[in-house]
């Protein structure tokens, strides 16, 4: 549609920066971080341009680029952005520079490799969100694992090796089966589409017979559910978060988890509408379980990072619920809530990081009265906490309300149960805030607790700005997502309910293979 391959540039800008970093002398800390930051900021700038140029009224992919990659296998390099991927692209582009900035100063050794990994990670993430070909998507999806594995495993805490292995094996298990499902889809696409293909747009036309469709749905759903993570597949998350370095936790919580929920919207629903409608109750139930379970368990965590990690389980439960109740407000809400969770939980991990850099402790018990020692941090922390517990006026409320609204329409009982999350989040988050910030000063070495540096302040300013902006005026985001979401919901409802017709056709197709 235009001369410049915007999307390709966007995806591979960070990688280019990574290559530059690889060439820099490892002693030049400033240069390493500088280049890394520059690369990710450039990506952000480009993403911003896309955001502005994006046409809100168009449901289909925009900025599409497409060329043959492995023609013999029906694999194409097909990328583009729509209302569903745009918010997540923006989120990635915003979070990455912050994560790098947070590492600057707190990660002191092997900087070169660290920055390199982070930039590669960003490329993989952007690719995941922009790919419109199943194999291309899978490639990026898996490529995310490797840098993350090293980020946790090399720069993490004492049990980093265990956490890293658990992270990668757990997530790989899910995606392994997804690969089988992807290939099966490809093989089935032949008869009914004329030529076998991995192209999402074409595979959406495919109508797979029901028993098989259910299996494929299961394979995809498992991969995504592990990533989200949906209860009870979440136990890799707390370990990964606790051990990962701050920057790692931030990216993990803010962006990686969204790969799962994004996967639901981008692939699971449109590819298997019939199975989706059939299994939506199950997934909704798990989501609700996650909301409540995560909330309760967070409350009993002595470790701040573990607490925040479990809170993610609860929050993403809500997002998942919003996906599977299959109403426009709920789906837009959970799309927005993906971004919100990225901002608020990312912020929470940044706060934990700031504290950890000073005390080298993550235990609530080692804190207390920090607000008195770090008066600049306290209000920022409070705002982030409030955004995380979805106080009106902050971003969290908008998403939460839309999800609950849409859910209520579909099923008031779900909504009622999910609303308990509103209470629980207040319980554990304010508990955390009080333990850390309020009460008499309980920190061992007061001297260490110097207030935020200028660099650290700049970590929070953008987040706070976003918290209030989305909280007060979310329309720019909502408007851009509406068309695509509406189209998706309709598509799933129509093709999902036209079940008998669909299954009939595809029983024919699935036999002649």
């Amino acid at each position, binding site marked *: 549609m235009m001369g410049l391959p915007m999307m390709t540039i966007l995806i591979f800008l960070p990688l280019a920066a990574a290559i530059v970093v690889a060439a820099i002398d490892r002693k030049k800390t400033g240069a390493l971080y500088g280049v890394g930051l520059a690369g990710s900021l450039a990506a952000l700038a480009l993403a911003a341009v896309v955001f502005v140029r994006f046409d809100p009224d168009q449901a289909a992919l925009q900025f599409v680029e497409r060329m043959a990659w492995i023609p013999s296998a029906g694999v194409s390099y097909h990328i583009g952005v729509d209302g569903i991927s745009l918010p997540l692209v923006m989120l990635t582009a915003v979070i990455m520079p912050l994560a790098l900035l947070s590492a600057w100063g707190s990660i002191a050794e092997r900087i070169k490799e660290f920055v390199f990994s982070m930039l590669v990670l960003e490329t993989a993430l952007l690719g995941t969100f922009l790919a419109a070909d199943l194999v291309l998507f899978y490639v990026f999806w898996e490529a995310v694992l490797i840098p993350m594995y090293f980020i946790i495993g090399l720069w993490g805490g004492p049990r980093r090796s265990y956490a890293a292995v658990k992270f990668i094996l757990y997530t790989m298990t899910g995606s392994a089966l997804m690969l089988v499902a992807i290939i099966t889809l490809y093989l089935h696409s032949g008869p009914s589409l004329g030529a076998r293909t991995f192209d999402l747009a074409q595979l959406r036309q495919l109508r797979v017979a029901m028993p098989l469709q259910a299996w494929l749905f299961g394979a995809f759903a498992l991969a995504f559910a592990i990533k989200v993570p949906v209860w*009870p597949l979440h*136990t890799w998350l707390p370990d990964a978060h606790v051990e990962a370095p701050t920057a790692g936790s931030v990216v993990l919580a803010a962006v990686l988890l969204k790969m799962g929920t994004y996967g639901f919207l981008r692939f699971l629903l449109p590819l298997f509408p019939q199975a989706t409608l059939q299994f939506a109750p199950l997934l909704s139930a798990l989501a609700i379980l996650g909301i409540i379970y995560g909330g309760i368990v967070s409350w*009993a965590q002595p470790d701040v990072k573990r607490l925040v990690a479990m809170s993610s389980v609860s929050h993403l439960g809500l997002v998942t619920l919003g996906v599977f109740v299959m109403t426009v407000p709920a789906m837009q809400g959970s799309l927005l809530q993906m971004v919100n969770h990225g901002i608020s939980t990312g912020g929470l991990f940044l706060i934990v990081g700031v504290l950890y850099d000073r005390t080298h402790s993550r235990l609530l018990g080692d804190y207390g009265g920090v607000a*008195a020692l770090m008066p600049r941090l306290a209000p920022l922390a409070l705002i982030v906490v409030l955004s995380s517990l979805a106080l009106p*006026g902050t971003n969290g409320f908008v998403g939460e309300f839309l999800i609950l*609204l849409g859910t209520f329409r579909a099923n008031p009982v779900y909504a009622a149960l999910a609303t308990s999350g509103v209470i629980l989040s*207040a319980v554990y988050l304010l508990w955390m805030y009080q333990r850390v910030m309020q009460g008499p000063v309980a920190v061992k070495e007061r001297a260490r607790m110097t207030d935020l540096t200028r660099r650290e302040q700049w970590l929070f300013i953008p987040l706070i700005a976003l918290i209030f902006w989305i909280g007060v005026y979310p329309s720019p985001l909502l408007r851009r997502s509406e068309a695509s979401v509406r189209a998706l919901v309709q598509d799933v409802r129509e093709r999902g309910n036209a079940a008998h017709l669909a299954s009939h056709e595809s029983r024919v197709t699935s036999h002649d293979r």
Partner: protein
Amino acid sequence: MVLEVIVALPLAGWLINGLAGGRLPRGVVGAIGCGTVGAACAASVMAAGDPAVAGGGLTATLFTWLSAGEFTVSAGLFMDRLSALMALVVTGVGFLIHVYSIGYMADDPAYARYFAYLNLFVASMLLLVLGGNLLVLFVGWELVGLCSYLLIGFWFDRERAASSGRKAFIVNRIGDAGFLLGILLLATTAGNLQFDRLAAASGGMAPGLLTAATLLLFAGATGKSAQLPLYVWLPDAMEGPTPVSALIHAATMVTAGVYMIARLHPLFLHAGYTLSVVAAVGAVTAFFAATVALVEWDLKRVLAYSTISQLGYMFLAMGVVMMPAGMFHLTTHAFFKALLFLAAGSVMHAMRGVVDMRRLGGLAGPMRWTAAGFAVGGLALAGVPPFAGFFSKDLILEGAFEWAQRGGAMLVWIAGLATAFVTAVYVTRAMMLTFAGPAADPGHPHEAPAVMGLPMAVLAALSFGGGLLGARVAGEPLLRYLEPFFVDSAIGVLKDRPMPAAGVITALPVAVSLAGILAGFALYRDRREVTLGALGRFLSHQWYIETLYDAVIVTPAKRLAHLLADVVETRGIDGAVNGVGALVGRAGLAVRGLQTGFVRNYAAAILAGTILMLGYWLFR
């Protein structure tokens, strides 16, 4: 335009004091704090004068806030007679308390933070009362809750203050969860949250749905307005600075529930028995809280329970469809309860924070003005004519009686009367213990400075003369002003009231109150510390309600949390995951074991494989 200004002014104050307050001189901070609210007050007066307010209402739509699917909510403000009244009370009383705070907080290190929070509260409260639709109201509703949290825990280095703040927030959240569900229900059934649309739609809605929705909204009200069963946070809220107690926990925020019902009265009227529930809850709460106030030793907590009790009256009024009376009582209560708190504040100020009435006493001499102020407030609270409280409370009890006549429960009216009596007793008790008799500990109490005295004086005047707003002799200006708003509801009750019968009904409460005062004098003369025996113990444990909550809800919840976190999570779910890993690892060792290193074993393996394959090929 003016509406935006009203909200924007205190908001600006918050931003300035919040961001730069630390670097500004105290004088400036105070000036900004009070100035913005004062200006907001002036603006409110202006706006209230606008003919549009008397008419359909003054609206200001800012922008589309939420739009998802066919559902849209705009960020808009709205002022009609009701919100005009509220805005005036909020900004007026708010202004006075801001001024008072200049003196009260004079030597607090976090001066700027205090005023920032206070301004934020006023802004939020104005958003609540001026919100153009239910969702904007809810935003204000939550934000005032936040401010209350912040101000209760203002001295956050005190563990108790922090905990009380958290408690307040969480208890409110429980109510708000209900409130939110109510909103969702209305949004899905009515499809829109504009007040006028809701009112219009309420007629057509299924009564069952409407009852559910209104009950859910009322659940929110019980939290915000500290009614049973969610009252528990308010007494602890006294951890905050006293002016805060006066403004938030007596005059304005806690009345939000009443305002909400008034605002949505068409829904409540159409919703079957919701109002009866409201009336019952109000009556029980009123009586319960009053009895507890009877045995409290902490002056501020006495006032806190008194507030709960008085809020009970207001809900009672709403429930018996005496809504104008309810709003009237809301107004007068704002005056005299604020006055009482400020007086108590200046006592604390003088006594270096002592609030235990057993350690007070004999302050009538050194703190003449404060004592006088407290007396005025007290009499108003007790409902002694011609003080403000008398008129409003009297009207409510009349309404209750009428209601009973029309088939409501007589008990509600009786409870109201009983409460009136108990109220009079505990007010007298507080008066006596605090001001009368010999001083418990010889300090050198000094009268409060003028900056604190003046607001008290003004409030005293209002508590004394405020009754005229609703006095029949004065032509009930406030009630008449509100009538058009409630036209379809309470007006009927107001109109055809059988005048003669009124004689007894109006006389009774007064008699009861006076009796109460006399009883108080009798009981507590020369500051006797009367403990009412077993009854007293029962009362001083607040009827064992909180004990019950701890036993039934809080403790089990904590246990469950630890069970899930320490057993289910680690051993159960994660145990399974790690188990699989360990299993594969062991398999690895086992397979290694097969690799014995002996050629002949390997050969044997080959032979075995051969036999298997031959077997497969031949005997398939």
